[in-house]
């Protein structure tokens, strides 16, 4: 009959129970050691540096965008301001004195020089 089990127990590595138990213990110990993070200063710094770097990058991004937006607004606001004052004066038929005009246009006069 070919359906009868073949006795392969001669190849059973667990026949030597002591050796086999040592093998099991060794695998478990090595597996656990590999999963446990090393307690070195370098490793701890590395594990802390990653979230800190991520937070710093996020903050830099937020502040960077904010600065860009503010800068953009200021850049648009500066040339409009004197023109707006002059337009107001014209609309209201006002005749400001030279000092006021120079105050409003002061920046552009300095730049032209």
């Amino acid at each position, binding site marked *: 009959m*070919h*359906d*009868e*089990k*073949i*006795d*392969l*127990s*001669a*190849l*059973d*590595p*667990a026949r030597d129970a002591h050796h086999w138990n040592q*093998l*099991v213990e*060794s*695998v*478990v110990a*090595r*597996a*656990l050691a*590999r*999963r*446990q993070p090393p307690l070195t200063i370098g490793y701890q710094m590395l594990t802390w540096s990653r979230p800190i770097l991520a937070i710093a990058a996020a903050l830099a991004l937020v502040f960077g965008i904010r600065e860009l937006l503010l800068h953009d607004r200021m850049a648009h606001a500066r040339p409009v301001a004197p023109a707006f004052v002059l337009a107001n004066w014209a609309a209201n038929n006002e005749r400001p004195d030279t000092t006021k005009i120079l105050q409003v246009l002061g920046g552009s006069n300095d730049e032209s020089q």
Partner: protein
Amino acid sequence: MLERQVTATLVIRAKGGDPVAFKELVQTHLRAAFSVALAILGRPSDAEDIAQDSLLLAFERLDTCREPERFAGWLMQIVRNQARNALASRRLRDVPAQEPTEELSSNLPMTDATAFSSQLLVALNSLSTARREVVLLHDLEGWTHAEIADALEFSEQMSRQHLFQARRELRKQLDGEDVEAQHA
């Protein structure tokens, strides 16, 4: 082999770093890993090394085991890959293939048990890898055809066929050797 649900629970606990779960998984799967490695490599000492390495690798990659209830199949795939890589390296080093008998006969005193181990290894060596895997997992490990089929990813019917053929070929080999020994 453990029930699927029990295995799944152990894997989940091991993922959380539970040493007891680790130990239980090693105790229940190291022999099967050894059998599959032996089927590919043919040398018990190499198979033992590969079985250990594969379990360590599996535990390192445990988070990638998506179906914890199929841990055995996932592990056996790792064992097969590791064993095939080891076999390829061994072939590159040009080590002759039929060393299981030499390994046993040269390192140990030739008792009846070691002589029989040698005979078995030589006989197993004449089978295809798939037949060796099935006969070792079934007749040495006591796995069912359903478990073998699930772990090695072929049908139960195929597992039965492999086992039938493997046993027939092994008997032929072993009986032939007995007859030769009697004539000698």
